[in-house]
């Protein structure tokens, strides 16, 4: 177990493309850190630099207190689980898991003990004699994890390890990996492009875009206080709604004026915007789908200019809730998550109340969050 420190790390390729730009982060001992972002954001390159599979162009990398920039990957005391894992087809499950330990000259007793323990954790004790061809997809994934676990490395590196599994198995394995982390108490650095995986698994999340860290925070912080419009849009499903408009003063109150929408901002939010000089300026207004309500109780409790009239285009029934899509506001498609009991249908018009205490405002030029 160890902390990992990336000290102003850069990755530049020969064609002057900067894949990772000034990555500076301390990953705590025993932390489950998730790197998330769209394709090409540099998350896998960062992980591969930690593994030693890519050379660091500039900056320092420490595992524990040891500078490892020039240490060969196999000597870094890490274990990596890849997206496209394969088992050794001519060896049974036991031999697959024992292989790395035999290479490192562990005693038979030690190998047995580690494999038994890992197999018990992964619930594959009954499969140890089987060849890979006799295993299901989920069982194979467990064996691949087992091969990494028995090494008892200082750090686990996982590069989209679940993306080759079907949706149901992916959810199941997500929980398994979390349980595993709780039992092993090892530092895990996990790369994914799936924001749900990031939110559900990470102690902290690093959101990346174009090689740059956008935000490092807990899932709660990232979701509720995104630092910019990109993070706000990337994290959360369905994504946050954004509307362009202006802030204007009327009768001592601050209002957001957009196309077919007029909202009076709460006093605490208005004060921040006034203090930051946004009055009479363009802004981007953001509201998450679950912060819009169609029920009468909410509308009655929030009567003051905090609602909009939606003409429903599409209703997605998720069972316990409905996603309703409409695009009659601000020339953009918006989505609200409402109670399934509301019984809404396409082509209906409804009034949606917005919980403005949870709204977000972004600078229209820099896309940086005001709050």
């Amino acid at each position: 177990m160890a902390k990992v420190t990336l000290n102003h790390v850069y990755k530049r390729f020969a064609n002057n493309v900067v894949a990772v730009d000034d990555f500076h982060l301390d990953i705590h001992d025993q932390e489950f850190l998730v790197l998330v972002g769209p394709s090409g954001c540099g998350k896998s390159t960062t992980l591969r630099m930690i593994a030693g599979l890519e050379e660091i162009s500039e900056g320092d990398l420490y595992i524990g207190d040891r500078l490892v920039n020039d240490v060969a990957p196999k000597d870094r005391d890490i274990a990596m689980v890849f997206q496209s894992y394969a088992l050794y087809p001519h060896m049974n499950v036991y031999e697959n898991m024992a292989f790395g330990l035999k290479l490192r000259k562990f005693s038979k007793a030690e190998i047995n003990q580690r494999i038994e323990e890992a197999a018990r954790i992964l619930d594959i004790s009954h499969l140890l004699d089987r060849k890979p061809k006799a295993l299901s997809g989920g069982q194979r994934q467990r064996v691949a994890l087992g091969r990494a676990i028995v090494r008892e490395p200082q750090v686990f590196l996982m590069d989209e390890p679940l993306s080759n599994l079907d949706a149901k198995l992916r959810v199941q394995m997500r929980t398994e990996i979390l349980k595993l982390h709780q039992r092993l108490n090892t530092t895990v650095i996990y790369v994914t492009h799936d924001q749900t995986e990031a939110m559900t698994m990470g102690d902290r999340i690093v959101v990346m875009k174009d090689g740059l860290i956008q935000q490092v925070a807990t899932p709660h912080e990232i979701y509720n206080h995104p630092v910019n419009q990109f993070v706000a849009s990337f994290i959360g499903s369905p994504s946050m709604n954004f509307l362009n408009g202006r802030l204007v003063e009327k009768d001592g109150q601050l209002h957001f004026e957009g196309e077919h929408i007029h909202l009076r901002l709460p006093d605490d939010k208005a004060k921040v915007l006034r203090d930051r000089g946004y009055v009479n300026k363009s802004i981007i207004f953001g509201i998450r789908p679950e912060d819009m309500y169609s029920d009468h109780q909410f509308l009655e409790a929030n009567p003051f200019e905090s609602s909009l009239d939606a003409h429903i285009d599409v209703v997605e029934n998720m069972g316990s809730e409905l996603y309703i899509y409409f695009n009659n506001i601000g020339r953009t498609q918006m989505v609200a998550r409402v109670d399934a009991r509301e019984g809404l249908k396409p082509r209906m018009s409804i009034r949606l109340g917005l919980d403005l205490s949870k709204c977000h405002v972004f600078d229209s030029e820099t896309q940086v969050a005001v709050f």
Partner: protein
Amino acid sequence: MDWRNKVEKIAQSTNLPIRYLECSNHEVDQLHMEQEKDGWEICNVTRMDDRTIGVMIQPEHWHPSARSLLELLFTPISNVDPFTGWLVQLLEVPTTPPPRYVREQAWRDRRLCFFLQRCQTESRMDMEWSALQPLLKDFFPGADASLQLVPLQPELCLLLVPLSYLDTDNKLEREIALELAFGLHEMLSCEWMEKFRVLVSLPIEQPASVGVSFLQLHTLSLALQRFCPKIMVAASWQYPLERWASTLSPETFSQVVDGLSAVLPFSPLTHEQRETLETLFARQLNVSEAARQLFLHRNTLLYRLDKITEATGLDPRHFPDAVLLQLHLLFRRN
């Protein structure tokens, strides 16, 4: 003492038929055939840059023990052994395998030929391939003595693994070969922790066939680097279209691109459309299999295919249209 002096001294002292041979690398086969007609045989050969140096004898005059001594006396001048030299030479001109190698290496069983290509382009290129030998021996337990690692270039080597010791379990040889290639790639990634491309050929019968397999795999490697750079594991019988396209001259290639643009005038496909088509083609146009591979409902895939038909005028479920779309994918992205 150089080989020429040694040969002269041996000829003087033994009075046995022995000759020194020196020629350019591409002349060696012709010379060898001519000398063979007169009863001469190359007993030792080595290469120095573009020159081949060798020793020839008339074998019927030489006692086997004397021949063994000759082989000890004429050690290769460079570090490149004749077998390696032969394979490297094959990339330039067709040549026959060194007779000594073929003679000594008569296999009792067939072998799988793996092509290991290091993809690390930076400072770790100085690795000695021999460092990998212990790891490979552990990975193929039981194949110890007959496991053969043939380093060809700093980033390239061949690995010959006897098939006999593997538990083939009545499985198709192609399946076994490909599964082992995936396993080998995984092992190198996890234990050696380096990015390799691992290619495999069908089992080969005799050492002389290594050259053919090597050339097939080399062609495949060039094709993958150019058309499918993300593919790290493949077999010699796969990617036939890519292999063919990689052999085209730049002029022909550009003519094909122009020709395709004329008959397929639609705008570039999206990433999702390309992924959909590639998966469908990899699954032999089997929609259900492709849907499973893409984790989609079959109807969703059908909808996507309908949209592709709408955009291109070609239905990927129909073989002639699929051929055009595959050519489009192959040539347009380059």
